[in-house]
């Protein structure tokens, strides 16, 4: 029994707008069904703990260097770019607070998740697509292993759990970068910097930023798996799956971010 393969509509060469709209809604429907199937399989034993740990390592640890480095640069760049504007008002002492708000609220989650959508999303998409192309997924189904549970659930759980952690570590490293950049032209001691950072952010900032990254992580993993798992046969399909995983994953990150900002603003 085949677990799940979502048959995508056949691609028509010359599409008119109504066909494109129809395709879009079909795609949204298929992704929703795919997500539903994920939640159904998530709570059904047996649980693939070992594979989940392995995927957590692949998503978390393997992205740490890239995320950490880009976070550090982001902190430095944000500080250097914000300085002239604040200097005009003679308010350079606000730099640590402004950095903290910018990094914790938006830059950290958005940029880290976009990097993860590029690295992790495309990786998952390409991996599953090549498994589909080389008929490994079909072989798993035939042999009685549940490929959806083993391949999709573990990966989506891994991205959902690891991306928020990556964002927290990235925020931390960004603030270290911001501290160094603040000390390029000014002299700010570490205790003063920490005090200014925590004076400018509140619980709402920290929690809303962390909660939204859980959704970002889920979206990146889900889209990566969906595109890979349902890729078209042939080597072309692998490239397409990886590409769509990045594009749709990044777009979803922005859409979810916009929704998160709207929800957070209700509480402010």
């Amino acid at each position: 029994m085949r677990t799940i393969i979502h048959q995508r509509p056949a691609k028509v060469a010359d599409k008119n707008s109504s066909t494109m709209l129809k395709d879009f809604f079909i795609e949204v429907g298929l992704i929703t069904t795919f997500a539903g199937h994920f939640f159904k399989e998530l709570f059904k034993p047996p649980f693939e703990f070992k594979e989940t740990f392995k995927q957590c390592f692949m998503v978390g640890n393997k992205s740490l260097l890239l995320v950490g480095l880009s976070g550090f640069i982001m902190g430095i760049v944000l500080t250097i770019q914000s300085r002239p504007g604040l200097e005009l008002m003679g308010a350079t002492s606000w730099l640590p607070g402004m950095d903290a708000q910018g990094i914790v609220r938006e830059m950290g989650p958005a940029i880290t998740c976009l990097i993860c959508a590029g690295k992790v999303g495309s990786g998952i998409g390409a991996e599953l697509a090549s498994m589909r192309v080389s008929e490994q997924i079909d072989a798993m189904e035939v042999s009685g292993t549940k490929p959806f549970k083993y391949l999709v659930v573990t990966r989506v759980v891994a991205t959902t759990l690891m991306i928020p952690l990556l964002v927290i570590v990235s925020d931390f490293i960004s603030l270290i970068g911001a501290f160094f950049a603040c000390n390029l032209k000014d002299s700010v001691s570490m205790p003063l910097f920490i005090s200014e950072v925590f004076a400018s952010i509140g619980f709402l900032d920290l929690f809303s930023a962390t909660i939204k990254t859980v959704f970002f992580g889920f979206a990146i993993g889900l889209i990566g798996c969906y595109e890979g798992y349902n890729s078209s046969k042939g080597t072309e399909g692998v490239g397409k799956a990886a590409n769509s995983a990045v594009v749709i994953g990044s777009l979803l990150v922005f859409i979810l971010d916009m929704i998160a900002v709207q929800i957070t603003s209700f509480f402010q």
Partner: protein
Amino acid sequence: MKTGTGNKIKLGIFVTSGVLIFIVAIYFLGQRQQLFNSTFRISSLFKDANGLAVGNNVRFDGINVGTVDKIQITSDTSVKVEMVIDESIRKFLKKGVKAIVGSEGLMGSKVVNISPGMSDEKEIQNNEIVESGASTNIDEILLNMQLASYNAVDITDNLGAIITNIRAGKGSVGKLFMDTTFANTLGQTMTNVEEGTEAAKHSFLLKGYFKDKEKAKAKELAKEKEAAKKKKDKGN
């Protein structure tokens, strides 16, 4: 198998460090909002909250000792502000303390400043309503500045009128500065006074007085010369 264990350890370190950073951040944020310290509450009634918001700092002697916890309108002319204060500060807060709404700077957020009470009084109690002081409102300052500028306009107007009169030679000061005949008369008077003094020096009634004065002057000069000589000798 070995690499599997190694990966698990690495993953463990990553997860632990991420969670630790999160917990430390929560701890720092909580500490700022007095979540983990034992606290007590005080409240104060203000006529005007002046833009105070929940979460603003409460300062005593310029140090952050708590936060504003609740603001509610109790009547059309009073606002009740409840504050959470660090328990360790209670021993310094005696009865008679005053809460005043101030601001951190021209562009900064609002703060409640608590001024010290009577040092020989008892400590304030939990949930006590403390007296509120009138805060300096930026609008009031601007209003006073406006009054001061109106006064300055009046003063410069008057000064202008006085200077015009002087230039026109009106009044005694105007005459002094602008009238040439007045200056000539004044010069003649001064010459007359000079001649009168010279005549007095030669009159037999005042001759003695002027001679005594000259002698005293000559003596003083001689003394000064001697003192200067002694100093020179000591230096050599």
